[in-house]
């Protein structure tokens, strides 16, 4: 998304050394390092605390105040996955993870395939309605889901899909597709059209061009778009909260919040669950970061 707002930016790692900053005064250098330490603490303390708490015994969490766990305790992690853990998450947590993974995978597949087809048409083909379609994509991408979840819920109810994972697979593309399409079309635009012309003259048809030439060249963009779609679907909360209502159909983000409805907060378990939930997006994000730097910044970002 950062890419969207700074289209003229060059690659993030581009020419850092040639910056004219080498003559900032000693005071500013110190300020920079103080700032760095401050911002690192500001960013990481909540995560670190979360991690430490997930390894503490209940006694340490609720009665004593300790900074570090006295001994590393994996009970909270174990109780998430065993039915006898005592909270709503116990025994259901693996189901929630599976639900999220399933929905995110299907949505990613849909978004990449349909997005690539539409993106190719938008960048390379000439037909009426193309410019307004491109504009409409940005418009729909920016419109927040909080505006439409109520009528969408009634649509889902009409389709008899309430409390199913299919409802989410159907609805999530509404926020992944506009971005994926747009992102891929701006990458496709950076691929020299002469390559395609050569193939067309040699007798390849349009779809052949797309699948044999454009998509292989756009592989980094496709990967980033797939990672994006997966992460967005995994992180989604509002639609999943509204469209599903039984413990068996919750996705992991909504499932986590089910633990807030209990009389006692199982903080250790909640922190452990939240950390596990955060792992896939963080791993994918690290993967995407490499790709964004090497791939998208080089091509898709160019206007």
């Amino acid at each position, binding site marked *: 998304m*950062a890419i*969207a*707002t700074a289209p003229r930016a*060059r*690659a*993030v790692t*581009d020419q850092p*050394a040639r*910056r*004219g*900053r080498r*003559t*900032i*005064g000693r005071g*500013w250098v110190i300020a920079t390092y103080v*700032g*760095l330490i401050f*911002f*690192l603490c500001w*960013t990481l303390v*909540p995560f670190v*605390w979360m991690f430490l708490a997930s390894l503490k015994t209940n006694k340490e969490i609720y009665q004593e*105040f300790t900074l570090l766990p006295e001994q590393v305790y994996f009970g909270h992690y174990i109780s998430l996955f065993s039915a006898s853990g005592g909270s709503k998450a116990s025994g259901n947590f693996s189901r929630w993870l599976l639900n999220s993974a399933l929905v995110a995978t299907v949505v990613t597949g849909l978004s990449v395939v349909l997005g690539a*087809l*539409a993106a*190719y*048409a938008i*960048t*390379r*083909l000439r*037909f*009426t309605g193309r410019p307004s379609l491109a504009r409409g*994509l*940005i418009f*729909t991408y*920016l419109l*927040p889901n909080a*505006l*439409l*979840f*109520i*009528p969408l819920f*009634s*649509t889902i109810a009409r389709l008899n899909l309430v409390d199913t994972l299919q409802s989410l697979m159907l*609805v999530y*593309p509404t926020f992944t*597709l506009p971005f994926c399409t747009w992102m891929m079309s701006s990458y496709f*635009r950076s691929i*020299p*059209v002469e390559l395609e012309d050569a193939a067309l003259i040699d007798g390849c048809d349009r779809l052949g061009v797309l699948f044999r030439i454009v998509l292989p060249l756009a592989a980094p963009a496709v990967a980033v778009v797939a990672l994006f779609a997966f992460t967005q679907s995994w*992180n989604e909360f509002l639609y999943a909260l*509204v469209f599903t209502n039984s413990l068996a159909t919750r996705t992991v*983000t909504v499932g986590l*919040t089910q633990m807030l409805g209990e009389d006692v907060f199982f*903080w250790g378990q909640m922190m452990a669950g*939240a*950390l596990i*939930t*955060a792992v896939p*997006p963080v791993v994918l994000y690290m993967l995407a970061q490499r790709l964004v730097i090497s791939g998208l910044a080089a091509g898709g970002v160019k206007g």
Partner: protein
Amino acid sequence: MAEVQATYTPKVTGGARRSAASRLLGRDWLLGWLLVGPVFLILLALLIYPFFDAILLSFQERFIGQDGVWVGLRNYTALFAPNSLFLKAAWNTVAITGGAIVGKLVIGLAMACVLNQRLRLRNLWRGLMFLPWAVPAVVTAYAWRFLFDTSGPINGLIAQFQLLDDYIYFFNDARIALPALILVVIWSGTPFWTMNFLAGMQAIPAEQYEAAEIDGASTFQRFRYITLPSLAPVILVTALLSTIWTSANLTQILVLTGGGPNYSTTTLPLLAYLVAIPGHELGAGAAISMMMMPAYTLLVFFLTRQMLRQE
């Protein structure tokens, strides 16, 4: 960078005469619409149709699982009744969004300045500082809810060192709940700003800084007269995007405060949710959503134009 003409392709049809349809609908109309068809249909069925459905819904009294009854403007007039939560929620939305935007701008800019310097392991620091943006909103909300909890570290320290007579009940007191919530929103939203600012800073030509240096400009002057003006378009677009997303995002509020205490942290989207889903009144909830529509349409329209212009 318009050297690549997006839609240019040579005539491979060997100069055959174009049919009437292709003259009217464009050269590649059939394949074009075939390819965009699925995306278009999904957006039509799940964004455009619900949009019009919402308009109709807002004029009905309709409970979940029942048929609607037309009630004219009643859902709308009820919003402005005495003691209505609507105006309170509207004000909360403005307060939370405004406070968060200012905070994210300042902290994001400072963070970007730090991360734009030549530092050891800079990419590692960048990666770490973007974490709050990468993880699900539910996770960040959980982390902070625990930090603010009576079992959390802040109250733990207070108890340990007897700093206060009692714990701070962050989310039980309206005067603390709102700023605490804004803090969390700032914390999780700042990386997005930092990222955009960094990208914007990389795009500023180094020559400008070199010229300023030769002219004897101080570090601060270079920031004030080169960096800041060059970032203006990025700041504008980021602020608009962030306004839309921050005001519409109800995940963190729902997890942290549930809108309480006494609705002091309930924003309009959250109110719409509370009325429509737990409250089962779809029509009344849709009316609240419709009231937000003009503002969002305006914002999105302006932003779309801005983004297309920059492209």
